[in-house]
């Protein structure tokens, strides 16, 4: 997956997790928590969805890397570079 595809994938997951939120103006360099109503269970949902969709295992000590879109995409890029996006 390219960086753009990873971003699309995360947006897709966020649509499921936070269906009441408008994601069209999400700022990549601002933390999710400062823009969206997300709690710790929601972040676990992001981790679980990545695990289910792509068998990506994210260790607990790396959860902080999912704080914003920019950091998430950067963190996932090496893990997903050989993975095709499932539409």
């Amino acid at each position, binding site marked *: 997956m390219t960086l753009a595809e990873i971003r699309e994938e995360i947006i897709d997951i966020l649509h499921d997790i*936070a*269906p009441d939120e408008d994601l069209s103006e999400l700022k990549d360099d601002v933390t999710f928590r400062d823009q969206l*109503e997300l709690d710790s269970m929601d972040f676990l949902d992001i981790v679980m969805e990545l695990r289910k969709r792509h068998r990506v295992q994210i260790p607990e000590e790396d959860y902080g890397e999912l704080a914003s879109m920019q950091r998430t995409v950067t963190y996932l890029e090496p893990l997903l570079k050989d993975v095709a996006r499932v539409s």
Partner: protein
Amino acid sequence: MIANPSHPNHHRIVITGVGLTSPNGNDLQEFRQNLLQGVSGVVPYNIRYVGDTLAGVCDYDELRHQKRKEVRRGTRAGSVGVYCAHETILDSGIDWENQDKSRVGVYIGLTEHGNVETENEVYQLQGYDYDTAYWSHHHNPRTVANNPAGEVSLNLGITGPHYTIGAACAAGNAGVIQGAQMLRLNECDVAIGGGVSESIHTFGIFASFKSQGALAEHEDPVRASRPFDVARSGIVVAEGGCLYTLERLDDARRRGANIYGEVVGYSMNSDASDFVLPNPHRQAECIQLALRRAGLAPEEIDVVSTHATGTASGDEQECEALRQVFGEHCENTFFNNTKSYIGHAMGAAGALELAGNLTAFEDGICHPTINVDELDTACDLAGLVVNEPREVGNIRYILNNSFGMLGINSVVIIGKF
């Protein structure tokens, strides 16, 4: 004695609000109208492993009182509970914004809880070779036994006590009884009590009834639930919910509340005789205890809302219990059944079936049990209202039966106010 004119009004408990969703109605008026017009809520239904079957399915607007995220995170029972809780509070006319939420209690009866989520998780886990790393972190908050009441508390900001009452299919009555008791103990000022059911979303309940030979089958879904009929074939599983707003009479009067009726008597007891087979003697004792506590003679009951589920032995046993109590001299006592319209709403059944009769205080009509083509002689109660509504006139007392597995019996008596 539970309610007696000599008791101070502080101990008299009244119903001031009704919120419900039933397979044939999403508020009391719609529900009542459909009961009087013979409209069923049973439809064709398909569930994993069991396949094509029948069920009572609700179509309330789950986004009326919840955000999409709340619906996604919670359970169906929680969603039903939130809908009914909002509706009952709205109906009660309580100034909710200024209500002290720490003095509100939530008491919700359940037949079972957690099966739906557990089945779903196991089902999807098989796609991951049963690796529990893929088991949802939502499993525990969704399956804890207080979940539906907890979701109500979260959604409405209620900080008083909340819990559920596991009482098999007697649970709807048990929730009402618990609410009344907590008001009398001054544990709360407003009790939201009743029952909810999400049971149509667990294949296990269908499969278990089928293995027991107690799952209804019929080519015409609306004819499948047929208590007292000679051709009855078992239970139609249903979902739904009904929560009452209960208050002490003096509080209700002080704010000028509309009062649907007074909880004048109740009782719960146990068969202590079998896992599944009912015991008519214990059922009769339960009814007699409620009557004694209410200070009423059997002939003073105008309408008896039966529990009968459409199983071969259960209906017969309840009729035997009713004959023991009401005998031959209660010619002005009428019997009906609401499961014949909506199926068996499990934890919600007792509360919903009471609600279906509650408006009879105003319209004086006893809705019938439907789908009786040939009455089973073993179920031939003198006052059984069959297929067509009966104008009874002034209805003063309604007695509501609700029984469940493991021999749990419950009776609630509501008086006209």
